[in-house]
């Protein structure tokens, strides 16, 4: 037997005539960080809502720890925690009171509630704000409290719906560290994100969802292989300069923006050599920048593969 803690088979969900989930399949192993990656409206929240027993699928089954999320919902609820897309802290209560309330609702005894609250406040860097009402919290603090609220029960599986959306870069990095620490304790983490980079940094396994279908699934490395490395983009003044540069350097041409796209080799040395080569011929690009591969790159790649496939079999 494999060690899948979440397994989803042919999941379908309709809202009216709109097919929101169109036959989704995946498995998550115990202790993994799994990222469901997709754009707005792809079906991420719908998938999480089914897995966390809030709604039922129209077809297919979702199992958590061997339990059916629609037929054994109450048993499933004892094993999971959900932190939704929008922070659900009680604004009028303080951070500490929020945690205590959640502790009591999770039926922990008094002393455990006290201990867990103190630990979580420290772990999530909320000690200074513990006695302040949550309505005075910044977006990042609110998000941290929100996630901490889900941890009181020691769940086996944690669902995080877009945990870093709306956070500034520094808070985002902190959140990544927190999530990685949670995973170290053996908890399975299921998160959604719109950012390829985030999935890449955090997840052991990534599934890309688009229009209610999983289009690719694999490890970050496997996905990376598909989309390639970081790019170095050199933009030139005129098409003539662009062609000249193309003769000197090996790269892909983008005529529309007059630029040459090279594979970045992740070193300043390489960048200097590239510029020197151009300099020797008295040429200077008007703009130079590094670009991370994006979700669009992935979609482009996938659609181009599909087209190639069609050509082959057509």
């Amino acid at each position, binding site marked *: 037997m494999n060690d899948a803690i979440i397994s989803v088979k042919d999941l379908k969900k309709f809202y009216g005539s709109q097919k929101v989930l169109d036959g989704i399949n995946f498995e998550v192993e115990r202790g993994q960080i799994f990222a469901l990656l997709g754009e707005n409206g792809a079906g991420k929240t719908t998938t999480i809502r089914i897995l966390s027993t809030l*709604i039922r699928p129209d077809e297919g089954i979702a199992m958590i720890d061997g339990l059916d999320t629609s037929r054994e919902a109450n048993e499933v609820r004892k094993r999971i925690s959900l932190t*939704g897309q929008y922070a659900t802290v009680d604004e009028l209560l303080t951070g500490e009171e929020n945690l205590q309330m959640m502790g009591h609702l999770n039926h922990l005894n008094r002393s455990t509630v006290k201990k867990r609250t103190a630990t979580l406040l420290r772990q999530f860097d909320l000690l200074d704000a513990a006695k302040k009402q949550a309505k005075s919290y910044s977006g990042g603090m609110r998000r941290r409290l929100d996630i901490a609220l889900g941890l009181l029960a020691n769940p086996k599986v944690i669902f995080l719906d877009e945990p870093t959306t709306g956070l500034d870069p520094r808070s985002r990095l902190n959140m990544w560290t927190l999530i990685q620490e949670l995973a170290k304790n053996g908890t399975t983490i299921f998160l959604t994100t719109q950012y390829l980079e985030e999935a890449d940094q955090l997840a052991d396994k990534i599934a890309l969802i688009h229009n209610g279908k999983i289009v690719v699934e694999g490890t970050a490395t496997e996905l990376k292989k598909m989309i390639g490395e970081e790019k170095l983009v050199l933009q030139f003044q005129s098409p003539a300069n662009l062609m000249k540069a193309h003769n000197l350097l090996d790269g892909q041409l983008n005529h529309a923006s007059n630029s040459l796209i090279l594979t970045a080799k992740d070193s300043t040395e390489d960048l200097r050599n590239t510029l020197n080569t151009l300099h020797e011929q008295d040429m200077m690009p008007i703009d130079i920048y590094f670009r991370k591969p994006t979700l669009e790159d992935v979609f482009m790649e996938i659609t181009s593969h599909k087209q190639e496939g069609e050509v082959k079999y057509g």
Partner: protein
Amino acid sequence: MDEMKWVIRDGWTMSRRSFKHILRNPDALFLSIGLPVVLMLMFVFVFGGAINTGTEYINYVVPGVIITCVGYASSMTAGSVAQDMVGGLFERFRSMPLRPSSLLVGHVIGSFVRNGIGAVIVLVVALLIGFEPNAEFWDWTGIIGYLSLFLLAISWLAVVFGLIAKSVESASAFTFFIMFLPYVSSAFVPTETMPKWLHSFAEHQPMTPLIETLRGFLTGTPIGNSAYLTLLWFGSLLILSIIMATIIFKRKKQE
């Protein structure tokens, strides 16, 4: 049995949360007390002279003011329930192994406390400006009993509205509706003085028997069959509302 224990404990946890909300959102409390008090002062000192009720006007109007106060404060529950629905807190709670009833009970108990405070303050102000009740111990028991039934029924009905409201603002429409009902009853003026069509509505709407019952207990006017009508009206409203709230809560779960 164990199940019952947890429903009570969770209900208590949620009630404590409601108490904190009352203390930290004093505006709502002041509004729900201040409004009826101002109303009472206005009716007694401004309109009172012009309204002929056959008794001292203040003794006539106090029961109506108390009902307005309790009805208003109870209906505010709709807003707090809607806040939890829209704000997503219930969504999180629904993904936990909790009984929905314990979550809703917290709101209703919070309403009870808010109302208790409100009703006592309104009564004290009434006594200060010359209200003279002649209620005995058993009358007071009856008053508390009927008021509790009324506030529970309205609070649960408010829960229903809070659950189906799309926003906190639309939930507060319910508050205005409840606020308005006592005006077209025998609360402030005898119903005989109203135009015919309004008179028959006022005569047959549930607020009138409730107010007559309360007035009877407080000042000794005849109660007649008002007490039974009150029990019938608000008893069935209470039962219906609890059933509806539970069904809607479950339905939302399976959408």
